[in-house]
């Protein structure tokens, strides 16, 4: 029963080292491997083929959070991994349980988030026979994991889980999966899982070659128009502090990618915030005109680069990445530096002969900040603007507040109008762009950081996709504030239809959505409605103060669109500030 498992343990530190009972089954060995790896939480849903594993969990101190849908389990585990930096764990049964996890696993894979998925499987003798609730889970997930394991033996299943755990966390993080046939978990064994080690064929580089670092440092010092592009890898490598020191010492403007939000404080004068399709005008101008880019932990996603032919075309590129396959994959790297971002930044810091002479360039960047401020219209009589809600909320909360989102316009406003200063406070679905990520991600984030405030900005479409997760937030009494930026549409699609499909709004308007405040109350959460500028602060304050999950149904201007915008495959420097610009580019 999840209620049993989710009761917080008393005084964890005070707990004496208890002798562990020896394992007697494969399932116990699985749980032991998780315990050895330091797992605190598992997100999952019960089922026939995974039952032996749950039975072994009954005797463990690991907390289990029963989710309302397995997609939520994989997203919650993902967010848990993003916030803590350690792998989040999710469980599902075979067949439909496993396939429901797939979206979250693919999402974690695209964002290099550490996740372990353990799935039940039909007994070995039925595998391949289309048995009840059988599916080829390893086959389905192989392309979206670092590795998917089929556990073949009760004696080695614990090792498989240990290895999967280590692998998810090693080098470039990502998801791993272990498929657990029921006879293997039920089977007797006395073999304890070995220590958590990555497979021998998996090598992680630590430091970059000194000579290469020296050359890169010289190129950067020579630059007239240098920028740092900080990606999600900076956060994953816990290199945010190293980045801050580096940028401040050498006075180089910093742009983040969207997953890199929080790696550099957005209130710092060197910050140009984030670049890409809906990034700031100034970041995109700087990207477009730089002559030397120090890119760290980014895979140059097309939402960032626009068309690669116009991406930073004057720039020599120094690329730091732990994954050699990212070097010159999308954008050619003149100076590839393979290694852990924190280590390599330290090497580069020491190797810099001097700071680049870039006063003029920094002034230019400041001019762009003045020319293209992040702005929106707020005449009093207009319907409520979503940007205002985000901005107010941001001002009211502490710096370490964690923001989760769904996918769509609301996600962009939440990233544009909230001021991020700390790593691991921006939790969103980037590479896969998964609507429905927000509700369960906020659950994972809150459990990962119970002392931090958690807010989830969601769209009405995204919220509806995983709204059943509210029941989990209520049961676990999680203090999360959900804000639905409700435009009665899948707004991002509608924006594209208006911009690029002559306003033919096929299947994008949702005037039949429920009243989210009432829906929240039905789940046992607190519900609020926002319709005008009058009570924005009070409502946010009330929702924040409510000790449990609350939902603010914010009826925003349905006509509001997201700008600036670089159209798909476009040129970053040619972003549109409004609809008229779209016709010009």
């Amino acid at each position, binding site marked *: 029963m999840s209620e049993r498992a989710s009761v917080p343990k008393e005084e964890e530190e005070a707990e004496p080292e208890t002798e562990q009972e020896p394992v007697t089954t494969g399932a116990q060995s699985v749980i032991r491997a998780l315990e050895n790896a330091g797992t605190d939480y598992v997100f999952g849903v019960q089922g026939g083929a995974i039952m032996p594993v749950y039975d072994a969990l009954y005797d463990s101190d690991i907390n289990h959070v029963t989710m309302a849908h397995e997609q939520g389990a994989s997203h919650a585990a993902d967010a848990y991994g993003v916030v803590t930096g350690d792998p989040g764990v999710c469980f599902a049964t075979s067949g439909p349980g496993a396939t429901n996890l797939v979206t979250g696993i693919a999402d974690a894979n695209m964002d290099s988030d550490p996740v372990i998925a353990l799935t039940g499987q039909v007994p070995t003798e039925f595998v391949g026979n289309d048995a009840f609730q059988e599916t080829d889970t*390893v*086959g389905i997930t*192989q*392309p979206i994991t*670092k*590795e998917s394991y*089929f556990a073949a033996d009760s004696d080695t299943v614990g090792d498989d889980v240990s290895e999967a755990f280590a*692998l998810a966390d090693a080098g470039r993080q990502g998801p791993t999966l272990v498929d657990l046939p029921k006879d293997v978990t039920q089977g007797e064994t006395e073999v304890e899982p070995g220590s958590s080690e990555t*497979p021998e*064929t*998996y090598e992680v580089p630590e430091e970059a070659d000194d000579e290469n670092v020296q050359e890169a440092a010289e190129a950067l010092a020579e630059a007239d128009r240098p920028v740092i592009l900080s990606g999600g890898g900076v956060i994953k490598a816990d290199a945010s502090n190293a980045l801050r020191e580096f940028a401040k010492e050498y006075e180089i403007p910093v742009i983040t990618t969207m997953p890199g939000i929080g790696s550099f404080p957005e209130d710092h004068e060197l910050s140009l915030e984030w670049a890409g399709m809906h990034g700031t*005008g100034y970041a995109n*101008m700087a990207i*477009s*005109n730089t002559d030397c880019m120090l890119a760290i932990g980014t895979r*140059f996603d097309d939402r960032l680069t626009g068309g*690669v*032919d*116009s*991406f*930073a*075309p*004057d*720039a020599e590129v120094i690329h730091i990445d732990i*994954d*050699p*396959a990212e*070097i*010159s*994959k*999308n*954008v*050619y790297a003149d100076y590839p530096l393979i290694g852990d971002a924190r280590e390599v930044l330290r090497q580069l810091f020491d190797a810099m002969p001097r700071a680049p002479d870039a006063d003029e360039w920094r002034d*230019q960047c400041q001019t*762009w900040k*003045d*020319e*293209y401020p992040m*702005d929106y219209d707020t005449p009093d009589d207009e319907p409520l603007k979503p940007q205002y809600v985000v901005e107010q909320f941001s001002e009211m909360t502490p710096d370490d507040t964690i923001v989760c989102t769904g996918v769509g316009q609301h996600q962009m406003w939440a990233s544009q109008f909230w001021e991020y200063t700390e790593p691991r406070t921006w939790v969103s679905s980037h590479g896969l762009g998964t609507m429905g990520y927000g509700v369960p991600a906020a659950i994972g984030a809150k459990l990962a950081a119970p002392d931090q405030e958690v807010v989830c900005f969601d769209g009405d479409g995204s919220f509806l996709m995983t709204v059943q997760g509210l029941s989990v937030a209520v049961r676990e009494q999680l203090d999360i504030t959900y804000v639905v930026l409700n435009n009665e549409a899948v707004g991002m699609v509608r924006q594209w239809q208006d911009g690029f499909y002559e306003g033919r709004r096929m299947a994008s308007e949702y005037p039949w959505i429920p009243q989210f405040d009432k829906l929240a109350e039905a789940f046992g959460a607190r519900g609020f409605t926002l319709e005008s500028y009058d009570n924005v602060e009070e409502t946010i304050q009330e929702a924040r103060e409510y000790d449990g999950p609350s939902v603010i149904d914010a009826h925003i201007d349905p006509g509001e669109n997201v700008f600036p915008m670089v159209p798909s495959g476009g040129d970053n*420097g*040619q*972003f*549109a*500030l*409004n609809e008229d*610009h779209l016709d*010009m*580019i």
Partner: protein
Amino acid sequence: MPGPAPDERMRPKGRRNTQGIRVDPEAEVTHEPRQAVLSALVKHRPGVLSEVSALFSRRQFNIESLTVGPTVDDDTARMTILIEEPEPGIDQAKKQLRKLVPVVSVRELEGEAVRRELALVKVSGEKPDDVNAVADMYDGQAVDASTDSVTVEITGSKQKIDAAIEAFKQFDVQEIVRTGAAALERGPKTLEKDV
């Protein structure tokens, strides 16, 4: 107060090609596809072949051929993969292969590597002597014969096999099977240890 419109903004001078490489506007550089022979040692266990082939199909690398078989070590198998791609694609293929957990090592074999392919060609059995004569020309031999058909085995380079098949067409080819290339580096170098 919005800043300058798109066409009035500061513009960079440079340009990249679609492969993300900065180009000299005078001399456009594009990489033409070339053939590469990749050789990989992989863990000998279920699912490895599908993992490798899925990697290639997902990334839209065009595989010319892929062969796999055991090595002297029971735990490893060796794959020979022929791809035809522009340079950056070949580089990606190697790096992506290396990332797969069951892959022990990957190397691109040099142009002069020993490359062999096997083909079995089944032709009509009406003129067995003529078939034998053509087989001889390509160092092939008949490995099966019936009243209606002769099956000939040929090994060699892809070009040689292409040529042989062309020659056999005069005998009404009924069926062909080709293995794709297997290849080894010349000299003492092996995949396991660099010499």
